[in-house]
């Protein structure tokens, strides 16, 4: 027993920031950003909190699925940018939805949503849940050094959600971690303990671009090849590839190394930037609501990012 997807939802804060908007205060240009990342614009929170984004995406997914909040057996959120260390984002969403089930967050950076789906699959396999709400939601703008043009132009805010029910549509998956605190790191605020002797690092995202690129392309290529073979399919059988939207150059580099027709790779980074754990569920919602998906379509989802972590799974829609 695994799960099937009963509904999807997503939400991005209304404020759109274009590359030209950024070029008005950063030494950068629309051309540089587009060529290097594929991004034209991103959504950025003003008054919205990360939990607001998660809640709105959840409402949309619940509405599409026809499932009521009271029916939920569990809520899981993937995030690295919630508004509180405690309560978890999932608990805040639980309260606002009027649900009464256990709720917790998962921290696996940009791979978070796929780590979360695998966790969800475990609860379904044990017969512990019949209906789950899973959300990837990020207010990454809070964690960016807005003076660092190498990072602040890449990310955006947003949330995506799915309502899962019992089913057999989650076919295969794999999760990988390669512990590293140098390639991608976001240090915390050290606090004001009178006994603290640790240095305060900039509490923002630090990312080594070349190493991240190399890790991401290798992970995406290997994970997809291995998983597709493990499931007994050939690469040409995959109808849709939904990659984490980190950088169009990563997706393009992986396309060259895979035998999946390039037009099957889904991209929306041009409009949303890198929304970390939200990127896959946001892309899934966009695809679902576009009417392009057909029941039975084979979808390969893959993600890679801080941890370092990577994950991939194959779903039958």
């Amino acid at each position: 027993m695994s799960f099937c997807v009963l509904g999807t939802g997503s939400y991005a804060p209304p404020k759109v920031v274009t590359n030209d908007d950024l070029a008005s205060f950063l030494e950068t240009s629309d051309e540089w950003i587009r060529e290097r990342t594929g991004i034209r614009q991103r959504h950025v929170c003003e008054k919205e909190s990360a939990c607001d984004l998660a809640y709105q995406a959840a409402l949309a997914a619940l509405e599409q699925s026809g499932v009521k909040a009271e029916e939920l057996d569990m809520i899981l959120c993937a995030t690295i940018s919630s508004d509180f260390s405690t309560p978890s984002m999932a608990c805040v969403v639980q309260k606002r939805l009027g649900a009464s089930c256990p709720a917790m967050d998962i921290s696996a950076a940009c791979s978070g949503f796929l780590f979360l789906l695998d966790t969800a699959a475990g609860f379904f396999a044990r017969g512990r849940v019949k209906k789950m709400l899973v959300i990837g939601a990020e207010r990454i703008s809070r964690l960016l050094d807005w003076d660092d043009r190498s990072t602040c132009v890449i990310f955006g805010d947003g949330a995506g959600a799915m309502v899962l029910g019992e089913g057999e549509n989650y076919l295969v998956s794999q999760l990988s971690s390669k512990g590293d605190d140098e390639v991608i790191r976001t240090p915390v605020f050290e606090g004001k303990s009178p006994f603290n002797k640790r240095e305060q690092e900039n509490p923002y995202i630090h990312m080594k671009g070349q190493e991240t690129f190399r890790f991401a392309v290798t992970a995406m290529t290997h994970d997809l090849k291995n998983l597709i073979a493990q499931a007994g399919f050939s690469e040409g059988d995959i109808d849709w590839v939904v990659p984490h939207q980190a950088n169009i150059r990563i997706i393009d580099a992986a396309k060259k190394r895979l035998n999946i027709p390039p037009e099957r790779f889904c991209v929306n980074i041009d409009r949303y930037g890198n929304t970390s754990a939200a990127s896959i569920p946001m892309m899934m919602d966009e695809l679902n609501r576009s009417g392009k998906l057909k029941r039975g379509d084979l979808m390969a989802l893959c993600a890679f990012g801080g941890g370092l972590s990577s994950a991939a799974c194959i779903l039958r829609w």
Partner: protein
Amino acid sequence: MIFEKLVAVLADHVDCDPSSVTMDTTFEELGVDSLDTVDMVMELEEELGIELELDEKISTVGEMVKLVEEKMGEKE
């Protein structure tokens, strides 16, 4: 041989006239940015079965060729 391979990889990535590329040509003049560099390093690694370090600041075609040749030498 390595030089020819690298020129072929470059021609795949950027619009350039392969016959005009020399050991002194810089990646900047070719419009190759740091992500292209990593992608090309990875392609060379895959083709030649070697591992290259990204620590070096490689700015010319000649520097890349030298790095690859050193690694190939170590392999033998």
